[in-house]
């Protein structure tokens, strides 16, 4: 169907709520269809080997998906909700786009935030909107591995793809990361269990070390578990750096600071030196704790140090399905991965100044565009209080605390389930999406393109 308006496809909902009877005829059949090699976008593993069993507008089975992937696929059916709400009242999508464009186009310090659970195609348009309106663009990276992004810029990253890890990694270290709960197929698909090209014995050929402040579900998979003191990651990493350089350390001081005896660190270092291909996966246990980018920097430097002895790489375990895509897209468009301000007509990068959490907590932003994220649940109270006080636009497939308080809230189709496009796996490998069924709701891309078109006019008229 040739659409001239969003409402040709997605009519107003005030008297016509979305129900199965209003869906396009071709998509209401109950015949079982199998979508092979569908891509799960719940976490950064982006598993692209899922077979989906689809009946009408419901996925009834997600073969090979983990517990998180199964919940993702089986709970994104078509919900009976308006496609657009303006000030909490059902409205047409076109009216929503107009109101959104007015809010953003007339703001003095607008913020675009989120982006990690949408396609790269949508991310690209979101950056364009930020450029037109001269605002800040920031992604959920800033509150997950943003500090690691700062460390990458400071000291670089010795890295590898997950395919290399699968085929070569014989010493796998997880630091401040709990993949058993956050990336359940990490062990079986990439890092521990697979029989690789150079690891025919699979798990038997690998040593797994876990460093954390508590015994997580992941520690059961470890050959060696090191429980360090809370907030002592920096000290523990520099202990290893010192050992890698052959420096003598005071055993008592090391144990007092890290909670782990020096002899255990020495043993770990010897094992690391003997590895053929070592890998350190690190999580938010490092980046969210005191030290933040200094912690990540220490880990990146340790990885670099180890390359004096053997091959060693590191990789952050990324949480959201396309947070890595957000880093890539914002980098292509602006030269920086997150925390970018476009207010002067050229990009400026400064975490702490242009990051969403700061821009909101300091009460600076006067409007916001929130895409596929939920700052009203996850940000600090001062940031949430300020966001609640300004007009903002939210795009999300689900109702969240953020959509509930938005001036304009769009219910959008779910990427990967209803919407095609591209996402980036946590190792920066682009993966195509294979959607399972159509949605009556517009995609992020459609909404953002509509806002961009309208914002251009508003900004030009203002100039």
């Amino acid at each position: 169907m040739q659409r001239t308006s969003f409402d040709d496809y997605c009519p107003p909902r005030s008297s016509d709520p979305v129900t199965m009877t209003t869906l396009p005829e071709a998509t209401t059949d109950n015949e079982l269809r199998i979508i092979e090699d569908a891509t799960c976008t719940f976490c950064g593993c982006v598993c692209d080997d899922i077979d989906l069993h689809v009946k009408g507008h419901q996925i009834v089975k997600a073969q090979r998906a983990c517990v998180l992937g199964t919940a993702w696929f089986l709970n994104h059916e078509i919900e009976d909700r308006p496609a657009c709400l303006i000030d909490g009242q059902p409205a047409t999508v076109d009216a929503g786009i107009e109101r959104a464009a007015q809010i953003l186009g007339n703001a003095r310090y607008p913020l675009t935030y989120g982006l990690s659970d949408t396609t790269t195609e949508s991310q690209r348009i979101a950056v364009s909107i930020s450029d037109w309106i001269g605002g800040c663009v920031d992604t959920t990276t800033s509150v997950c591995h943003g500090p690691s992004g700062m460390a990458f810029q400071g000291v670089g990253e010795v890295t590898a793809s997950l395919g290399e890890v699968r085929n070569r990694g014989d010493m796998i270290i997880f630091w401040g990361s709990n993949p058993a709960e956050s990336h359940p197929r990490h062990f079986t698909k990439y890092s521990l269990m697979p029989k690789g090209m150079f690891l025919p014995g699979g798990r038997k050929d690998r040593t797994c070390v876990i460093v954390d402040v508590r015994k997580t579900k992941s520690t059961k998979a470890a050959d060696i578990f090191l429980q360090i003191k809370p907030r002592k990651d920096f000290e523990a990493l520099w202990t290893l750096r010192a050992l890698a350089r052959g420096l003598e350390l005071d055993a008592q001081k090391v144990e007092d600071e890290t909670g782990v005896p020096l002899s255990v660190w020495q043993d770990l270092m010897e094992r690391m030196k003997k590895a053929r291909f070592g890998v350190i996966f690190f999580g938010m246990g490092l980046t969210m704790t005191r030290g933040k980018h200094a912690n990540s920097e220490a880990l990146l430097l340790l990885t670099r140090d180890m390359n004096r002895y053997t091959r060693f790489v590191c990789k952050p375990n990324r949480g959201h399905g396309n947070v890595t895509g957000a880093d890539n897209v914002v980098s292509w468009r602006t030269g920086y991965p997150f925390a970018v301000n476009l207010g002067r007509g050229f990009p400026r990068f400064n975490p702490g100044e242009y990051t969403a959490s700061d821009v909101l907590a300091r009460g600076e932003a006067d409007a916001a565009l929130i895409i596929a994220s939920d700052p009203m649940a996850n940000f600090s109270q001062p940031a949430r209080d300020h966001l609640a006080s300004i007009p903002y636009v939210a795009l999300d497939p689900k109702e969240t605390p953020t959509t509930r308080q938005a001036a304009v809230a769009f219910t959008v189709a779910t990427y990967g389930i209803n919407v095609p496009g591209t996402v980036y796996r946590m190792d920066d490998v682009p993966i195509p999406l294979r959607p399972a069924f159509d949605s009556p709701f517009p995609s992020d891309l459609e909404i953002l393109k509509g806002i961009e078109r309208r914002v251009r006019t508003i900004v030009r008229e203002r100039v």
Partner: protein
Amino acid sequence: MVNMETFILIPGRTSNQGCGISEGKFGPTYQAEIHRLLMAPVDMQRLEIASGQRVRLRSEHGQVDVAAEPAKGDELPSGLLFIAYGDLSSRLMGGDTHGSGMPTSKGIDVTLEVLPTLPLV
């Protein structure tokens, strides 16, 4: 006498919380998971906290009331608390990111106060 002690709080991700996000953030799975504080059993015993009893956590930035439950086995060492990321953990975070863009979201100093159990009606 008020039963009060200082702890370090580690907010983090759990499978149930992840599943709850897909089911819907206002649904029972997500809500139950983010409103559950895990403690070392030895700490609960020392402070005479029954499983499910409400405690008050205060940080430099806010306070929340939450039900405490014992962590399985030795998952948590004494002095450490765990809660799934969500509204309650965010209320205890400060807005300052110390120039990093990231609020200190793990390893938060908190004071735990045991709340009196409500009498049965």
